Each structure stands twice: as C-alpha cells, then as structure tokens.
C-alpha cells in the first residue's frame, strides 16, 4: 500500500533550498533590525508609572484573542480580519510542520495526521485568500471612507494575495505530477491539479513550472518577512505588545502627568511615555477611532487616527536618523487638533488594539498648558478655576445661593448623616442645571433619605482642570476636597454629575483604596424606585422618551442600566433608543473642557446629537448629566426648536411624576 505522505521538498534542488533559508533568514533579520531601531526610539520615552508583569501581559493577550470583544462591533471587518489572521496562522504552522519534518529527526507527517493537516492547511489558505478578497472589496469597491487607499496598503495586500495564490499553485503542480489518490483531501490543490492535467500540460513542463513557482513563492514569502515591520504590517507584531502591556486603570481615569517638575516641556515626543510611542507603532490605521470621533465627524481639525499616525511617523523619523534634533509633536500636530477633543472616549472604546488614543491628546494638551500657549477662552477658564474654584467664574460665595430658600441640611460637626449630596459647580451655578439639584433635593426629601450638603465648602472636583491639561490645578482641588471630606468624615457621596462621579470614583484614590463610596444619582434613583421608597404614579405629558448616555456615566464607567431603569419606570412613557446608544453613544460635545471653549468646524456636536434624538420621534430627551442637558438645550434653542423637543434630567422626570 502506498504510504500516505509526500516527499518533502520534492523537486527542489539544493541551491533552491539554500536560497530559501538564506533569504528567509535575511528577511527576518531585516525585520528584526527595523523593529529594534524603533524599539530604541520607544525606549527614549519617559517610563510610565506602570509595572510590567509577564503573567498579566499573557493574560491580556489571551483575553484579547479569546473574546475578540471589539471585532464584532463591525461585522464585516471582523470576519475579514479573522479570516486573514487565522488563515495566516494556519499556513504558518503548516510551513513550520514541513520544516520540522524535514530538518529535524522528528517524523510525524504521514498517515491520518498527514491527511488532516493537509485538509486544514488548504482550508487555512482558502480563509486567507477569502479574507484578503474581502479587504480588496472594502477598500477598492466599497471605498469605505475611513480607509485610506494608500499605495503602500495596496502593495502589501497584493503581496499577501500573491503569496496565497502561488502557494496553492505550488500544491497544484506537485499533485498534478505525482497524482496520489489520497491527496483529494488537499481539495484546492487537487482541484488545481486536475485542471492542470486537463489543460494538457506534460509532466516535464509541470515539473519545470513547479520549480519556477516554488522560487516565486519563496521570494514573495521572504519579502513578506522583510516587510513584516513596515507600515501597517508592523501592527502584526507591535499590537500584540500594546495589548499585552495595557495598563490596569479605570476607563474614566486619566493617567497622571509624569513630566518631572523640573522639566520644561517642548512637545518633544520623548516627553511622552514609551508606551505611547509603542502604541503609536501598533496602530493598524484602521480608522475606527476616527469614524466615531465627534470632533472629526463634525468637521473639526482633530482626527484621532492622524494624531496616532503622526506620532508613529515621528518615531520613524527619529529611528532613521542618527543624532538629529529631538522631534517635537507640535511640528506636525496642531494646537487646534488637541483642543478639539471632548474626551468622550469613543476612540479608545473602538480601537481594536487597545491604543489609549485620547490620553495622548490630553498629554500633549498638558504640555501646551505648561508652555502657556493656550487660547484666551481656555486661559480664562483655568485662571477662573484657580481663583474662584469653579469653571464658570462665579464668585465662590455665591455657591449656595441657589438653595437659599430650600433650607438644606448643612454638614456640621458631630453630625453623621448617611449621604452627602454633592451638587457640583454646574448644579450650583448653571441655571438649567440648578433645576436638577432642586429636583434631587425634592426626591431625597420625599424618600426620606438622610443627607446633608457641603454648601460653600464645595469646590470644583478638578475634572475640567485635569481635562484641560492643568494637572497641578487638578491635584490642588483633589487635595483640598479630600481634606474637606476627611474633616467631616464623609463616607458616602451621591452626585448627579457624571463628571464629578467619575473624578471621585476613579481619580481621587491615587492608586490606593478609595476613601469613600460614591454613586451616581441614577443608581440611587433606580435603587429608591425598586425599594419602593418613591413611587412614580403621575403620568407625564410625553409618551415617548429617548435616553442620551452621558460619556462619563456610560462609556467611561459602564453604567447603562440604572438610568434606563429609571426612565422605564416613568408611567405611561415608552423608551426608544437612538441609533447610537450605550457604548456607542455619541458625545453631547460638552466634555473635556469644551463647555467653556470655542467650537470650531462645520457643525456643532450637540446639534448633531439633538438631530439624532429627534429622529427617534420622541418628544422628550432624558439624560443624566448637567453638561449633556445644557449642551442639548443650547442646540435646541439655537435650532429654534425648544418647543418641539424637551431635554430633561432623569431626576426632574422622577420629581415630576413621583407620588407625594
């Protein structure tokens, strides 16, 4: 009986083998050398305050591979990438098996194993080519806007397709000459062989063609190895690193500013951390960040992918130069771009390789602030914050004015109430947010919650200062507020502002254990409703409501359920969702300091969001953030539509419908 195997390196002469091994070795060497040059540049970055632990890195990568959590968000791309990646991996393993069989004493490539492996490898090849054709379709036929069809990408795609095709042909030629029956399992190769035979080619000719194709296939593969660390191919290796080294920290927490106090920032890319530089090189240029960015999609200067790629470009420029001047990020990244970001976090959520996109933007903003070159509006806001402790520049003495007639229980020595209700600057100063504070007080009293307020002892949490780039100012606020909390023994805080909530929850612990518990009012309200402490019985005028997810409640802190539960408990009202909701929610345009900055670009973010809300047909937009409320209200007023759609905080809705 014939042995089920094949002669490895059939029809391959010694010099061909030498060519392959020397070439492959050189290819890997070139790729490694290129990578090492970039590695040397990464190392010039500052060291971030993260510890690298190998087990955690492995766990990160494993989790990333297993759940592929992010890919299904774009079905077609996900399938495409899956096919290319796994096709490639299978083919790579197949080639390795052949190599092991031939070059080592191991002998396993026969019998059933041979049959199964052959079939699987063919399957892998099909997947690889199918995935690549999908990529071609997307780029060149569908012309997806976010994918830039650059010449490089085209060339690299062509290279991979050529490798796949020559590989199959190789198999076809081989089988067409030897024609063993069991090779039917290599279904593609066998099919090709039959076709070649039917084409009437003589054996000698086929053997010659096989040899030529073998050389071509080898040369292309060598080229692939050599190019494995250029352009977006680089992500094949670097993205694994960026995922592995992903820092552990809450989504909503910005990382600390790690520039030493003595250093004077210059926008030098080496004032960024090595992780930032590595991240930039891990970018696949997929453009998913850009496609969801509220700044880009409303025609502003910022394009998050461009920022990442510009950084990568600077790394590259430095890598290819011996001792030139340190490249400055501000050579290519403009101030306008950096100030357009709302810190909505959509980019980070979307990025398939876990690049911390907007953290880099904020880090560069911090450098701009340290240099002092910022817009008058930003300067006014930051100076007002420093002197008057609120971003609206109101006198701090007026902080408690809104509540003068309410006779609120103030915090006092010896009193140990369960909750501190934190009003926040918006709730205290901004008229349309004051109504949220009033509604909350109303509800807390109705539900007999034991609470106090800090009154004029409140000051900004530091969220706007931090997101506008003045880290020192943020730390000052944090220290002062923590001091107030300690002095009064505060241990439970409820706030209606997701920005305050996020800052308290994620940025006040400073690496240690949290000193107090903080919840968002949506969580308290949903709890009070389910406990029966408040009952919503009076039906409201509106029949349909849509809920706008605040970025700092939803995407940054994962709270989607509680506010929806509150909305769903409103009697006689039906909730309809907007096209983009929950994790994919679109920003209101007010975060990251944008509330106080000038807006650029063709459209305003809040107008886009309001239009989207109106498209649901709902007459009421509910939200759970004073900033979102103010922004959407502004949009509705400027569009001359404030009668058509109302914007309310969930607490106002609860207070209106609650049984008294």
């Amino acid at each position: 009986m014939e042995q089920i195997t094949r002669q490895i390196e059939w029809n391959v002469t010694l010099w061909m083998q030498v060519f392959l091994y020397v070439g492959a070795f050189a290819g890997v060497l070139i790729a490694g050398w290129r990578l090492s040059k970039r590695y040397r540049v990464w190392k010039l970055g500052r060291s971030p305050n993260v510890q690298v632990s190998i087990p955690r890195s492995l766990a990160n990568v494993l989790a990333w591979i297993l759940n592929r959590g992010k890919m299904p968000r774009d079905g077609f791309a996900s399938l495409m990438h899956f096919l290319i990646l796994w096709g490639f991996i299978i083919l790579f393993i197949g080639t390795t098996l052949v190599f092991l069989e031939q070059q080592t004493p191991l002998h396993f490539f026969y019998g059933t194993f041979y049959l199964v492996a052959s079939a699987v490898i063919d399957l892998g090849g099909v997947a690889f080519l199918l995935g690549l054709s999908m990529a071609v379709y997307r780029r060149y036929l569908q012309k997806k806007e976010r994918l830039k069809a650059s010449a490089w990408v085209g060339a690299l795609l062509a290279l991979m397709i050529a490798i796949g095709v020559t590989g199959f042909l190789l198999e076809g030629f081989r089988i067409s000459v030897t024609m063993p029956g069991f090779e039917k399992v290599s279904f593609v190769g066998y099919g090709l062989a039959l076709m070649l035979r039917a084409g009437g080619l003589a054996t000698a000719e086929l053997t010659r063609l096989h040899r030529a194709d073998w050389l071509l296939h080898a040369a292309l593969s060598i080229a692939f190895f050599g190019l494995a660390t250029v352009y977006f191919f680089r992500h094949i290796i670097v993205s694994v690193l960026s995922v592995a080294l992903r820092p552990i920290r809450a989504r909503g927490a910005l990382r600390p500013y790690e520039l030493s106090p003595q250093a004077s920032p210059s926008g030098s890319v080496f004032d960024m951390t090595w992780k930032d530089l590595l991240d930039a090189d891990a970018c696949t240029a997929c453009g998913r960040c850009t496609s969801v960015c509220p700044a880009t999609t409303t025609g502003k200067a910022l394009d998050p992918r461009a920022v990442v790629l510009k950084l990568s470009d600077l790394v590259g420029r430095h890598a290819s130069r011996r001792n030139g001047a340190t490249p400055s990020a501000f050579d290519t990244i403009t101030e306008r771009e950096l100030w357009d970001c709302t810190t909505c976090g959509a980019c980070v959520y979307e990025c398939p390789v876990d690049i911390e996109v907007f953290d880099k933007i904020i880090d560069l903003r911090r450098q701009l602030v340290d240099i002092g070159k910022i817009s008058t509006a930003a300067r006014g806001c930051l100076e007002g914050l420093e002197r008057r402790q609120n971003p609206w520049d109101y006198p701090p003495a007026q902080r408690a004015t809104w509540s003068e007639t309410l006779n609120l229980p103030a915090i006092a020595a010896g009193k140990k109430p369960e909750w501190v209700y934190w009003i926040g600057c918006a709730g205290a100063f901004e008229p349309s947010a004051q109504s949220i504070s009033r509604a909350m007080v109303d509800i807390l009293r109705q539900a007999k919650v034991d609470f106090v307020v800090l009154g004029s002892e409140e000051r900004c949490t530091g969220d706007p200062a931090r997101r506008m780039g003045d880290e020192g100012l943020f730390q000052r606020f944090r220290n002062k507020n923590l001091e107030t909390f300690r002095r009064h023994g505060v241990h439970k805080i409820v706030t209606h502002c997701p920005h305050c909530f996020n800052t308290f929850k994620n940025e006040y612990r400073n690496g240690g254990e949290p000193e107090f518990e903080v919840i968002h009012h949506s969580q308290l309200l949903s709890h009070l409703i389910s406990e029966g402490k408040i009952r919503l019985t009076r039906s409201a005028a509106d029949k349909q409501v849509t809920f706008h997810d605040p970025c700092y409640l939803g995407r940054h802190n994962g709270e989607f359920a509680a506010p929806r539960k509150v909305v769903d408990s409103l009697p006689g009202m039906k909730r309809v969702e907007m096209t983009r909701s929950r994790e994919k929610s679109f920003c209101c345009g007010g975060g990251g300091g944008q509330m106080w900055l000038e807006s650029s670009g063709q459209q305003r973010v809040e107008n886009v969001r309001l239009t989207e809300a109106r498209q649901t047909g709902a007459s009421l937009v509910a939200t759970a953030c004073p900033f979102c409320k103010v922004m959407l209200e502004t949009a509705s007023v400027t569009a001359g539509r404030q009668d058509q759609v109302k914007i309310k905080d969930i607490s106002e809705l609860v207070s209106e419908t609650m049984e008294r």
Partner: protein
Amino acid sequence: MKLAVCVKEVLDSRLPLQVVAQTGEVAHLGSERVALINPSDRAALEVSLILRDQNPGSRVEVFSACAAGEEDALYFAVARGADSVERLVQNGHLAGPPYTALLLANRFANEKFDLICCGDETLDNSSAMVGPLIAELLDYPQVTGVTKVRECSRGKLLAERSLDRGHRELVEMELPGVATFKIEAAEPRYVSVRRLEQARRREIAVRQLDIEPSKSRLPGWPGSEKKVPPRARVKKKFTPDANLPPAERVKMIMAGGMAPQQSSQSSAILEGDPDYLSEQLFRFLRHHEFV
C-alpha cells in the same frame, strides 16, 4: 538688551472685597486671600519676555517693591520665565506710589537698563504715577499707556498708544527709557499651577536700599494735594431713542448724546458676501470716525 519690569501683587478684584475698619486695609470677604499679578504689569512682563526672545542675548529682570509675603507677582514672573527677580525694601516705613517709584529709581540708578517696563496703572491704587516718576527721577524719556510695541531695537522703541475715538498715536523713544503698558499690549500666556508651584520653591533675592525722601522732589501721597473733582453739571441723563436704527444709536452713545440728528442717509441695510460687507462696514466706521 537689558529689560527691567516693575510688578506688583494685587488682590483679585472679581472676588468680593471689604475694607477692614480698624486698619483701613482692603481684604477679601470671607474666603481666603487671592492675589495675582497686576494685569497691566502682566502685560508689561509679557511684552518684555517677547522682546527678549526676539533679541538674542537679552535679559529680563523683574522688580517689586513690596513687603514680605506679597511676592506673588514675583513668583508669577519666575514661572513665566523671567531671568531674575528681586524684591526691594527700604529702611523706613514710607509707603505709597511715590516711594515705590523712588525705591525703584534708586535701584535703576545703580545699574543701567535699556528699557524699564511698568504696567500703566494698578488695580488697587490706580495712581498711574510709578512709571512716569521713575522716568522723571532718572531723567529718562518716557512713553505711557502703550498698547502695542511695533519695534524695539538699535536704541529705539517704536510704540503705539491709543487715543480717543479709536485714534492711534505712534511714538518713538530713545533708549534708555521708561514705558508703561496697557493690558491690551500683549496677550499674556497661561502659567500652569505646576510651574507656579515650582517657582514658589525659589528663594527670592531681597535688596535693601537706603533712601532719603527729603532730598527728592516727590508729590505727596495720598491726599496732601487734594484732588478737587470738577463740579458736576446738571445734565439730563442721556438715553438714545429706541426707535432710531442701531447705527444711529451707537453713534449717539459714542458722542455722548451730542450727535446731531442726521438725515436718512446715515443708516442702510447692506447685503452681499462677507468681503463686500466688511469693506462697507469699515468704510462706514471710518467715515463716521469710529475708527
């Protein structure tokens, strides 16, 4: 070029202020004391720093005649990039703008500076006399209320001052000299808290100067010469007629209600592209001497 900048710390006037009855001092109501660099001094500092960066090899030295604990303006100058800062104190207890000027002038008599920059007036005293007095005491030329520096090189300063009705004056001054600046002379840069705190760690040099006020000819302060405000004439309060077109109203306000009613020609509705509109608007403003 050697540049000297005179600065002063003032209380933030946007926070509620009160006068403490016992001492007659001004303090913040309730909240903690919030001090800042006097806004026009900040503009003067910014102008000098820009001049320094334009003229390689230049230095900016910053001076403040103030008591210990009132050095905020000096720390700010450090954080903003001044080359050196110095606090001046005198042997006696003579206070007030004339003595501030005397102290500073004494300091500058010892060491020559090409340009001495001051804010044109402070938020608190508003005397606007320190800069001019320094110039008088040193016998230097002076230009006050500068709103823009056109050029400063080769021993000359070319500066703009703004006059009434949008008119501008271009002045040339020989150096060394004294210039006082209005707030709009430069858009000041932001100084981050990180930099400010870093600056606060710095030791500030103190220089004690002996001055004898008796020998100098100084105006009194405050109140030795009584300022008698002109008697207010009884005048009907002016409000423009709400029925007039906006342009007419603006004109009446600008002229203090004295503008004669003009014929219908004075207002018009223009339509067209922005270039055309701005051109026409500018002509209109020019014609009516708004600019």
